[in-house]
């Protein structure tokens, strides 16, 4: 959950996670926007079990998701070090 005091966030924008529109703020990482929206599963493991973000510093790759920015092609990115941008479209649940 977003902490309310002592902070003014960036501009409101929207991101699509598995087809569902969620609210995000400029400056947030994709991981933050997803957790704020209670989207806690990022990828699936080899047995198809959900996995969540783990290290939040780019080391563990547990937060890999498929991201399409604008008209670009889909890229597999670590949500913890990827900044949200308006209209970003994200697919969770791929196996690494």
């Amino acid at each position, binding site marked *: 959950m977003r902490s309310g005091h002592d*902070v003014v966030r*960036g501009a409101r924008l929207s991101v699509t996670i598995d087809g569902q529109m969620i609210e995000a703020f400029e400056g947030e990482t994709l991981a933050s926007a997803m957790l704020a929206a209670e989207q806690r599963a990022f990828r699936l493991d080899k047995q198809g079990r959900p*996995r969540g*973000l*783990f*290290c*939040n*510093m780019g080391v*563990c*790759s547990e937060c890999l998701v498929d991201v399409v920015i604008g008209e670009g092609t889909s890229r597999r990115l670590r949500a913890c070090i990827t900044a949200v941008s308006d209209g970003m479209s994200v697919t969770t649940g791929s196996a690494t």
Partner: protein
Amino acid sequence: MSAADFDYDLIVIGGGPAGQAACLALKQRLGRVAVLDEQQRPGGQILRQPPVAFTVRNWLTGRDYRALQAQLKAFEALDGVTWLGGRSVLGVQPEGDGWRVLASDGAAVSGFTARRVLIATGCYDMTAPLPGWTLPGAMSAGAVQAFVKSQKLVPGRRIALAGAHPLQLLVAEQIIEAGGQVAVVAFTQTLTSALAKVFRHPRAVLSNLPRLLGVMMSAARMMRGGVPIRFGDRPVALLGDSEVTGLRLEASGDVACDTVAFCFGFLPQSDLTRAAGLDVGPGRVGGWVARHDDWMRSSRAGLYVAGETVGVKGAEAASAEGRIAGLGILLDAGRLTESEALIEAASPRRRRGRALAFSALLEDVGDPTAFTVLKPPADTIICRCEDVTLGAISQARNVASDPGAIKLATRCGMGPCQGRNCEHLLLQQLPGAADTQPGFRPRFPARPVRIGDFTA
């Protein structure tokens, strides 16, 4: 390749306390300097800054952050240092009599050349495997702290902290300050053993009294606020089917929570140092520390190392080492004589000595061995990327003895994290291995990147 052909005279990898201090030590005596970092803004994990688009009041105002904040401010005001944030360094390779640093910004891979490179990549949370630790909602204490510090986000409704490192008291307090709820702070060691270890370091206690009292007062405040702080209470399992719904503690039983943060200490980042072929030695609780001389020179000419990547001991020591590395670089570049460098290095060397005394205390108190000696059940996942269980590793040990062979037999360590989360766990299963075994062979690239980006 002559000096003029390099993009930079120095590339610093890592904009944390060590990297900043190295740049500040240069005082514009070197020429072109660039700093690469995986984060968009400088600060490192300890001062993970809010994004530029946020306005945050009263950001990390605590006493322990003051000197670091001043250093960060001075670094950001430096002229002549090119900041290259938002880039994951994939590898450091020789190029002529210098180096080429390859980095990805998520969209493309670029190369930057430099006569000299300082690797100051810091550390990361050491994992500790438990049944259920792969459920969404399980994360490192560092992960929680980074959300709170830089994103103003509490990553759960009710967070349980478990581990051995005293840092978890600070993390708990930061969660509460941010409006979050802490279900429990559980230490694996008993209070008696922790206090006995504190008093093995009387001089560090005396010179850090305000800091230690601060920790005790924060613990008292939390307990008054209804947060249970338990000692001698080891985590046994994380509960839940598709995500965390609780934490099972050995003594306290089941605690309801939706997030569990582990705090067992830290491992040095060693993927770049090892892939560059630098001499390394075993870290105290695991991982590898890069070896260095008095000027933070690594075993290869032109590559320098500083901060937690040479041993986890806190931001103050890291900053002092960064200063020393900067001076060593000026010395090697002929911009300082040895006696000039020695004079400038005297103060950071003293600071480093003091900081090491305190970190020795923290290391001793936060010793995770009481937990790591316990073997989790055989079906516990050790390698998170490839879903390799402890049982699979035990089985592979019948036919393979060294980490490389076990990796081939089980796929342990073959995933995108390249063993950062499982290599030390595997070595714990091979007694004495950390002293005698080289671990996994480091592979390029250090971070996941699309193959097509290399040919684009």
